[in-house]
């Protein structure tokens, strides 16, 4: 059955049909929730709640992208969760579980050795830590865009803001994350610094001149 058919059936209260949709999207939903919230338990809760909520409100779904519809629910749920944590920081479990969750032997590429895999894991942790430093709206926007691959328009709809707001939030989020990665740069595996070093080397010469120019 195609997605439209499943949605139509789900709109008539058929759980089986809806569960087909769950199976199709749960990885994305969970992934999004995990990247925004940063810990597996909260992500699982948010995912479950997303699907329950989606099922309950699917009657009002009027076509369009079902993925966007789900993303919207997840984003809002995560947003609320983040704000709730802000109110009760003590209940945060953010520091639990990253390592284990990110470690997924199945993701080892055939041509990738254990070391490379370990580097990738470390890289993922640093990035996740950087995402966590972002304020909620920027965090959600960044994850929707760069983890989930939503378009500006989709993000605008999912988060109920204008395209301009999406643009600026995303830019700030990326800029902060870039700065964070720079600050943590020494912690990154060498191969993830290659690019930057190359840029640095290339820019360095210019930079000297530029600095001088600015100074003068």
């Amino acid at each position, binding site marked *: 059955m195609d997605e439209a058919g499943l949605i139509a059936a789900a709109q008539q209260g*058929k*759980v089986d049909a*809806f569960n087909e949709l*769950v*199976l199709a999207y749960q*990885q994305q*939903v*969970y*992934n999004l929730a*995990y990247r925004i919230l940063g810990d597996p338990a909260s*992500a*699982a*809760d*948010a995912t*479950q*709640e997303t*699907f*329950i*909520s989606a*099922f*309950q*409100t699917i009657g*009002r779904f009027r076509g369009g992208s079902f993925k966007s519809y789900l993303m*919207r629910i997840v984003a*809002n749920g995560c*947003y609320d969760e983040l704000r709730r944590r802000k109110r009760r920081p003590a209940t945060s479990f953010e520091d639990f579980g990253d390592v284990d*969750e990110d470690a*997924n032997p199945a*993701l080892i590429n055939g041509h990738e050795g254990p070391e490379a895999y370990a580097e*990738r894991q470390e*890289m*993922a942790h640093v*990035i996740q830590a950087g*995402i966590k430093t972002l304020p909620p709206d920027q965090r959600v926007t960044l994850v929707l865009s*760069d983890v989930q691959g939503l378009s*500006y328009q989709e993000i605008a709809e999912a988060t*109920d803001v204008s395209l301009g707001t999406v*643009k600026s939030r*995303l*830019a*700030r989020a*990326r*800029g902060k*994350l*870039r700065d964070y*990665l*720079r600050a943590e*740069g*020494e912690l990154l595996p060498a191969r*993830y610094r290659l*690019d*930057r070093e190359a*840029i*640095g080397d290339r*820019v*360095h010469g*210019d*930079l000297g001149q*530029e*600095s001088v120019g600015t100074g003068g």
Partner: protein
Amino acid sequence: MGRLFARQDGAREQADERHPADNGHPWDELLSAYLDDQLSAGERARLEAHLATDPHLQAELDALRQTVALVRDLPPIPLPRNFILPQTADKLHPADKLHPADKLHPKTARPQFSPSPRPRRAWAAPLLTAATTVVSLLFGVVLAADLWFSSVGRLPLAPAAEPLLEAEAPQPQAFAPSPGIEEAVTETEVEAEAGKAVPAATLLPMPTDVFYPPQPPREAPAEAAPEVEQYASEVPENAEPAAPAADGGPTEEPAPPGPPAAAGVAATPTAPAMPEGLDATAPGIGAGSSGEESAPPTPAPGLPVVEEVPVVSTVPAEAPATPAEGVGGTEPTAGWVAEAPEAPPAAVEEEERDEAAGERGAPEGDVVRLAPIAPWRVLEVVLGLVALGLALVTVWAWRARRR
């Protein structure tokens, strides 16, 4: 690293003229949009012109691009489990039930995502709290009552016993005249004579019929009648059942008295029985007091003891019932009251009993201790456990809700 920071600072110096540093890098919005190909043709042309002449800007763009690439390359997180909904989920289907779908509608200012579980728990936690409170209070009341009564039962038992005797005393007299009441008389007399025995004897007869398997008590009166003292010595054994009545308070005894009370739930039958009994005793006592000197003092102490009063009342009420079966077991009190007035003449006997009662004080205490009272304590334990369980569930509910 130093170089990188230097590079960054350089870029910042360029741009900070126009934008506060807090907003990040001034060019970032353009660069970010550029990466996503979200710039208008004009914007892009201008930016590209800048990039061509500004290596710092180019470096920023590259760094930003790499950052985005790193985020995009984040490995997917393995699912901890499946998130398919249970078949029962369709019962929740009506969207408005838990979640106003409006919240999810794009046009709402700030869509609120309220996961369904939370609303469900929302009412559960307060409700559980209320339930816990009620049960706890109930438990407290019952416990307090038990403690109070048990303490009262031990100390004032002597007085309490006296009232019993006296209350009963009138009965015997009243009944004595009646034909079939001889048994009753014997019982009452026995009670009166045997200080300890009195409560036991009076109480026992009733219980015996309904609840208490041990029938010795019943027979006891007959035997005891002649030999009071002996009986008293013997009584303790028989008295045990009676003792609970004294300790446990009205609930126990009343229950058994009710002929149908077989149900065992003392509470309901007792309640009605008690008031009647009280009334009955009260008048009886009053009558006795008016007629006699000794009578008034004894009843007085007995009355204050709330529980015991009922006991007394019930006892007499039942006592007549058992002996005078023909009189009408259900409403012994009525007959009681009516007969009570006649009691005064028998005052002399009562006086004797009163004396006996005075002696009884000590022995009764023993009887009380022997008593193994069950239902009262069982009720306490059950209430306590329920309260504890509710409290735990409540705590859990609040926690779940807070999550």
